[in-house]
């Protein structure tokens, strides 16, 4: 009951952050000047007075003659109604909306799978290296995490790519799914799968196990790369907070009850040690999403990140607008989820 109240309060707190997010995106786009905004809409064959007239019309349409402050509200109204403008990049040209529907599933998929991998890999290793402090396992974990932590993200992905795709050939080098498999599939139209747009899930829904497996097979390597990039921080943090927790009075108290050491670790120590790891993962998600961008570029996965970089290289305002907005929303949602997990873990924050 109290947890629900907390969740509702936390959701309400998102609103100002979202408004801030739209302000920052609005400013970014408008600092570049109005010409870029209307560029996508302007017929390039017009010249002279006709062109001037067309520009005038577009200025009217987008309220570009009004003060910036007013413009923001027109723009916000437009965004809320789902009109995000046009984008023109080599990988997609058309409404930003459609582009998002096209690209976001891959990004979400990468972010989710790699977050899950981070915790699956991170928790046992971090906990264990604290419990077995200074053992060979602990020492090698520390060397490995230190190195991983220092590596730039793209380096981790490249190494993973070289080892598992180039040398071992276990995984494909690039792409999100084998395009040959999708030929003539009824639920896959113009590069978009229906109904969820996430190929893996749609394939499962339609019973195409083959395609689903192929999609997963493509995602393992980039997700693993992103996870490896992020897991080092989590392991280091968990290890140190676990060491701190193991020194606490309540651990001694737990031991004094005569419960087994594994219960002491699993029930008493681990949950307490997880709290700082979960709170700091809010910052970790920001890094992880950055990693998603780079991984999409390196592994050639058509996701929002890949689109962003294409937009940057091709001077495309729509792409930057759409991707910044969607990444912001993903991040805000992720931190909301993390906060709820935190509250579920720690009864003290619910009050």
């Amino acid at each position: 009951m109290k947890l629900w109240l907390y969740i509702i309060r936390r959701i309400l707190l998102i609103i100002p952050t979202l408004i801030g997010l739209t302000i920052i995106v609005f400013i970014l786009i408008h600092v570049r000047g109005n010409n870029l905004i209307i560029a996508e809409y302007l017929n390039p064959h017009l010249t002279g007075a006709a062109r001037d007239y067309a520009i005038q019309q577009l200025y009217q349409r987008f309220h570009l003659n009004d003060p910036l402050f007013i413009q923001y509200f027109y723009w916000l109204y437009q965004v809320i109604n789902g009109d995000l403008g046009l984008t023109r990049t080599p990988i997609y040209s058309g409404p930003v909306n459609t582009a998002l529907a096209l690209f976001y599933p891959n990004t979400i998929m990468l972010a989710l799978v790699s977050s899950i991998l981070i915790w699956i890999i991170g928790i046992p290793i971090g906990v264990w290296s604290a419990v077995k402090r200074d053992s060979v396992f602990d020492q090698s974990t520390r060397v490995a995490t230190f190195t991983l932590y220092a590596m730039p993200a793209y380096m981790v992905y490249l190494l993973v790519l070289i080892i598992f795709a180039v040398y071992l050939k276990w995984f494909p080098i690039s792409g999100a799914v084998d395009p040959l498999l999708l030929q003539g599939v009824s639920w896959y139209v113009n590069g978009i799968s229906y109904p969820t747009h996430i190929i893996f899930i749609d394939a499962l829904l339609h019973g195409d196990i083959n395609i689903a497996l192929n999609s997963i097979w493509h995602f393992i390597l980039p997700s693993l790369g992103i996870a490896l990039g992020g897991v080092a921080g989590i392991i280091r943090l968990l290890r140190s907070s676990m060491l701190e927790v193991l020194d606490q009075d309540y651990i001694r108290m737990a031991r004094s009850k005569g419960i087994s050491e594994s219960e002491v670790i699993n029930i008493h120590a681990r949950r307490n040690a997880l709290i700082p790891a979960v709170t700091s993962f809010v910052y970790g998600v920001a890094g992880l999403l950055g990693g998603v961008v780079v991984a999409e570029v390196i592994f050639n996965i058509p996701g929002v990140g890949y689109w962003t970089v294409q937009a940057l290289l091709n001077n495309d305002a729509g792409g930057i607008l759409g991707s910044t907005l969607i990444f912001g929303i993903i991040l805000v949602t992720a931190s909301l989820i993390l906060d709820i997990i935190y509250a579920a873990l720690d009864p003290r924050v619910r009050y």
Partner: protein
Amino acid sequence: MSKNIGLIGRRNYLLKQNPRIEELKISFKIFFTNPTAVAGFVITLLYFIDIILVQFFPSFIGISDPNRYIYNFNNPVPLPPSSSHWCGTTAGGIDLCDAIIKSIRIDLIYSLFIVIVGAIIGLLLGLVSGYLGGIFDEILMRITDIFFSIPYLVLAIAILFVLGVSLENIAFSLIIVWWPLYARYARAQTLSIKQMTFIESAKASGTRDLMIMFKHIVPNVLPPIFVQISLDLGTVVGVFATLAFIGFSPTANIPELGYLTSLGLNYISIAPWSVIIPGLVITVFALAVNLMGDGLRDVIDPKRRSV
């Protein structure tokens, strides 16, 4: 009687020397008895020597043009390391050793610039908002919240889009996304120091705010910020290189490590060294800076100091 106490006090003072120098001595001792920290320090030093040589004595190490790569279109496909090319070559026949020696300079100088400027902005704002509190503090926190609501790499790309892709603009965009971190950090430090009793007593004795800030708070906030800078430097070098890696088209021809790595990308299956070697150069630097930063953290850790 009172004279005596004065004398003894002065003698103790002379014997013990200046307490600040004493503290500094302890700091050096803690740092230089930590082998990994020293290793990090030495490696970092080597990188900076490379910068100085490339900047001021390029011909001394056999570099003809420090500002661009030298293509060899007779042999555009990457060659493996050999006696003529110690690190091999990358796309366009560029010699990797030569390219790396040139590139380190750009990455390091820009990264250093980013952290220092970012830290100064963040420190000033964080100090003021932490010390004054109230509406100013509230506004600053909301602003940093907004910055934290977009993944920093994406925000940097968006800013880069506004400014146009160039090395300087990469640096600017990273300053813009990095300062809020320092602001938060400096604010938290300031808040914790503000609560200590000696600040209260300084206030009670009528010291002015500005005085308190610079005499009491800044000296206490600076050391942890400094440690943070040295730890961040490794991350920032990586992010800077990452932006250069994804942001430049293959014809840009700038001596920068991320860009250099991206040149090898098309040959990754036949010439993996062309991406591994430049990447390792950054990794080693980041590793060294992190080791050094860990050593520095020990230096300011009161627990370690007392043992």
